[in-house]
């Protein structure tokens, strides 16, 4: 496969000379939807690079999607995908803000409402969770990619991933206690709570169902952790204020916390449609 990359919303730069190939024999499709052809409207030699071609298409292309371009006459295929940095930034951003795990996917709520009564506990949990989520995403991906998938044991996903998480939490608890007792005294209690947090399990499951690559997997776990930490911090700030407000007795405590979370969820809707790359 030769190189090809997106230049802008409607232009693709291909690393070989396609000017003499008839335009109708060029076929451009999105990787998941091979039946829907994206029409090519112009083929021109590139101004900057020798022997390269710029292809203009009718539809708008997505910088975060994967495309396949094939030229029947030359018998060649080009794969066009996002670069590693694009993929990383867009995945992290999407997991942390646009599809925040707490406010738009409603995961990890038990821990979310449990630790947000004080700002200190919220920050402690946020930091611990981000680290553990990253590690468990990494290990789960390796486990899935090198053990479960080759052995066709994907139906054991749930047991395998919860096992990975439980072992990781137990291990980091013991290691931290031995090596950094002060850190353990500060963050140890949050470690135990993480096992019952659904996000930590949802991330590897989502990665496995999307057949995500390595970079995408660790970016998703990183983004999930950061998004959760952000949600915890925002919520704890709001709840500390509400503690002093005259709330009707039947709403005091959790009911009003839910209403606040709803308002946060509404405001997080504002992130939908956010795009960094054209």
């Amino acid at each position: 496969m030769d190189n090809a990359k997106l230049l802008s919303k409607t232009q693709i730069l291909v690393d070989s000379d396609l000017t003499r190939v008839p335009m109708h024999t060029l076929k451009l499709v999105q990787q998941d939807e091979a039946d829907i052809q994206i029409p090519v409207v112009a083929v021109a030699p590139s101004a900057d690079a020798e022997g390269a071609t710029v292809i203009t298409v009718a539809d708008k292309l997505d910088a975060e999607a994967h495309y396949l371009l094939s030229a029947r006459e030359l018998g060649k295929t080009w794969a066009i995908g996002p670069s590693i940095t694009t993929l990383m930034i867009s995945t992290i951003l999407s997991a942390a803000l646009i599809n925040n795990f707490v406010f738009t996917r409603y995961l990890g709520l038990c821990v979310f409402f449990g630790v947000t009564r004080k700002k200190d506990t919220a920050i402690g949990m946020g930091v611990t969770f981000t680290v553990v989520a990253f590690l468990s995403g990494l290990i789960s991906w390796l486990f899935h990619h090198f053990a479960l998938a080759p052995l066709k044991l994907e139906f054991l996903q749930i047991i395998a991933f919860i096992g990975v998480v439980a072992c990781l939490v137990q291990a980091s608890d013991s290691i931290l206690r031995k090596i950094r007792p002060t850190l353990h005294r500060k963050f140890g209690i949050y470690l135990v709570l993480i096992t019952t947090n659904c996000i930590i399990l949802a991330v590897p499951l989502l990665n496995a169902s999307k057949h995500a690559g390595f970079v995408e997997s660790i970016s998703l776990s990183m983004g999930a952790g950061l998004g959760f930490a952000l949600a915890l911090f925002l919520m704890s700030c709001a709840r500390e204020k509400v503690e002093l407000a005259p709330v009707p007795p039947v709403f005091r405590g959790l009911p009003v916390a839910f209403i606040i979370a709803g308002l946060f969820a509404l405001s997080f809707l504002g992130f939908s449609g956010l795009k960094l790359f054209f």
Partner: protein
Amino acid sequence: MSVTPPTVSVLLTRGLFSENPVFRLALSLCPAVAVTTAVENGLMLGIAVFFVQVLSSMTASIFKKWINPKIRIPVYTIIIALWVTVMDMLLAAYFPSTYEKVGLYVKLIVAFAIIISRMELFAAKNPVLPSTFDGVGMGLGFLLAMLLAGAFRELLGNGSFFGYPLVHFQPLFLLVLPAGGFFTIGLIMALFNWVDLLRGNTLPKASGGHG
């Protein structure tokens, strides 16, 4: 609890109101907010949790003599994961269209605090039969919570019940949005508190969700 075992009727009904897993114990909140956009989704997840809860409580109670207390939590988790895998495959095979919407949450039943907390607090100390009844009661309570939230959101947000259109009005789109789930649970929790006040009980001390 283990000194004088509660009667069967108490075991079966306390999950419905006084110890409702979602609205009272504030456990397993994620699915309650996530899948209750329609009664059907709520019903499916409720049934899945019901069976996983009953079977896991039963299994833990049967094997309690052989489980080393030091590693009981991982063992419980594996037991739950086992039954969740079974439920997951059953639902995927028999109800593929609903499963598509709630599939991820069915898998996440493993991490639901309500199931493991019932195993730890009740099944580990009690014989098989009461443990099963306790599982049934808690499972029913969860099912009720899912149906209540689902019905509220589907009726106001979509004007329908179980997919059948009932009332004709401009639906409150807000309620099927992610945010609507939070509002619904908050309102129903407050309603539970209010009913409790009317019955002359004092409000339970504001307890944060835990576990």
